């Protein structure tokens, strides 16, 4: 077989290097996997086996939150931020350092970080803040002369995560919570306007209702915004046709596989009135 066409290995064995509760029902899982850490781009995700042995049966999708440099300076670990929802995420929260885990990745279309000379705003809702340290790192590597900020919204102070990591990477975070227990009171759409300096692009990740609110809020204002959708996936790499999202096509929609056409999409590409709320 022509080596140029040799299949790319998607499955990787990683070693758990840390697993800690960092916010209420939210874990930071760090995995040693140099190949993945070197290849992954902001907005991409992995499909991880919650535990060995096929129970739960399917893998689970997680944004790669960060890629950490090893002793040589090259990235050798990835970080996932995991909100505990059901049995898969519960099993992941119980992973211990030294264990191995099987992952597929890197998967999906990364965010387009755009022109580093222009301002970029990272908008995260809840566990949707997860992908942004990697974005901040990549932006910094590109020489982010245009400025980088984050706007993170959480239900309350106990749910806040990923804030310190962003600040450590030199990205100031505007924090808001629905109950006002940390940062400003309200939701991200209540606080976004002062952060939209002329020429700003937005990268957003969070629950579907947040995207719907953002879509209404930004409509017609000429602010480029990419979102990362969160539709349940069986395979994560284009086989099953399960994780579809409604992409506008004229007056109707087509169901696009979010695992390979996405998970990142321009916000205006999605027919938000046809999107359901996952939780």
């Amino acid at each position: 077989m022509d080596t140029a066409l040799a299949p790319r290995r998607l499955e990787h064995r990683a070693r758990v290097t840390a697993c800690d509760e960092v916010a209420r029902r939210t874990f930071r899982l760090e995995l040693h996997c140099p190949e993945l850490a070197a290849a992954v781009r902001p907005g991409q995700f992995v499909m991880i086996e919650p535990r060995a042995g096929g129970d739960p049966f399917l893998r689970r999708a997680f944004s790669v939150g960060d890629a950490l440099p090893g002793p040589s300076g090259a990235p050798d670990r990835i970080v996932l931020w995991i909100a505990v929802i059901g049995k898969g995420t519960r099993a992941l929260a119980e992973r211990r350092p030294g264990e191995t885990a099987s992952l597929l990745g890197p998967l999906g279309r990364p965010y387009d970080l755009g022109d580093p000379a222009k301002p970029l705003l990272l908008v995260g809702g809840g566990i949707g803040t997860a992908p942004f340290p990697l974005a901040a790192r990549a932006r910094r590597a590109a020489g982010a002369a245009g400025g980088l900020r984050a706007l993170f919204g959480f239900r309350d102070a106990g749910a806040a995560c990923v804030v310190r990591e962003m600040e450590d990477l030199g990205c100031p975070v505007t924090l808001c919570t629905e109950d006002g227990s940390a940062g400003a009171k309200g939701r991200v759409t209540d606080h976004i306007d002062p952060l939209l300096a002329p020429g700003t692009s937005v990268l957003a990740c969070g629950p579907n209702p947040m995207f719907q609110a953002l879509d209404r809020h930004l409509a017609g204002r000429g602010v480029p915004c990419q979102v990362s959708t969160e539709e349940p996936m069986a395979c994560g790499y284009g086989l099953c046709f399960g994780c579809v999202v409604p992409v506008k096509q004229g007056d109707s929609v087509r169901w696009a596989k979010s695992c390979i056409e996405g998970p990142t999409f321009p916000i205006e590409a999605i027919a938000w009135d046809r999107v359901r709320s996952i939780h």
Partner: protein
Amino acid sequence: MRPRMEVALGPLRLRNPVMTASGTCGSGLELAPFADLSRLGAVVGKTVTREPRIGNPPPRTFETAAGMLNSIGLQNPGIDRFLSGVLPEVVASGYPFVANIAGESVEDFAALAARFEAVRGTLPVAGIEANLSCPNVAGGLDFSVDPRRAAEVVGALRRATTLPLLAKLSPNVTDVRPLARACEEAGADAVTLVNTYLGAAVDWRRRKPVFGRVMAGLSGPAIKPLALFQVWRASSAVRIPVVGIGGIMDAGDALEFLCAGARAVQVGTALFRTPTAANDLLDGMERLLEEEGIADVNDLVGTLRPRAEPAP
């Protein structure tokens, strides 16, 4: 010594008995970047229909104990765009490809087969698998429960093409044998079974079904014992080869199906967990056969009981 792995499904000669199952790796182009499909017996494409189908709104999949439910709704670009936009790339990629088709009428099936027959000179497929059993579209089921209707479809396909013809059957029947026999008599070269088992999932707090159509198709290891039984039963009723599917995850599973009467197997849901599942399974089969001193994979087929013994 490496075992001989070639098998024949009537006129369809396969390098080995391992295929991918319809609807679980698109046209194969989706999986080709991650697994060497040219090593497999064949890739069976996702069902193609005459008209494009946008498919069902999500949710489309739901995890279950040892498997999953799906209700994709036969999303596909339709035969015109399949032939112009997909098949040329598939043929150029060089892996053996079996086209899977479904229709809402006998005429639909025949017209689809005629299209593959017509492009045979330039875009040859290795065979056609008629999906007589998709549970996720209205009207799709009667071909799978009524032997007379199944025979009409297979007969019409047989007249429309001389390509190798596989009839894919549903397990959602009391007895699959009359259906398998009807397909054999109408000219099928092989029968494939099983398609997914009908199932449902319920969100009791909202008093709502998870799937818009309530029913969905169950696949994965959860159905393996059920599928194994259907394959054994069907293979006792027909002389044409049987292709076994249902929850095959590893080489041992595949060899069980061969032993129960399957001449070849298809791997479906396993691919969702492991991109190289079919390739790994093939390697494993060769190793296990060699360990057992079985020189030819065909020697295992139907060894569960004498193949010639008529069904009761």
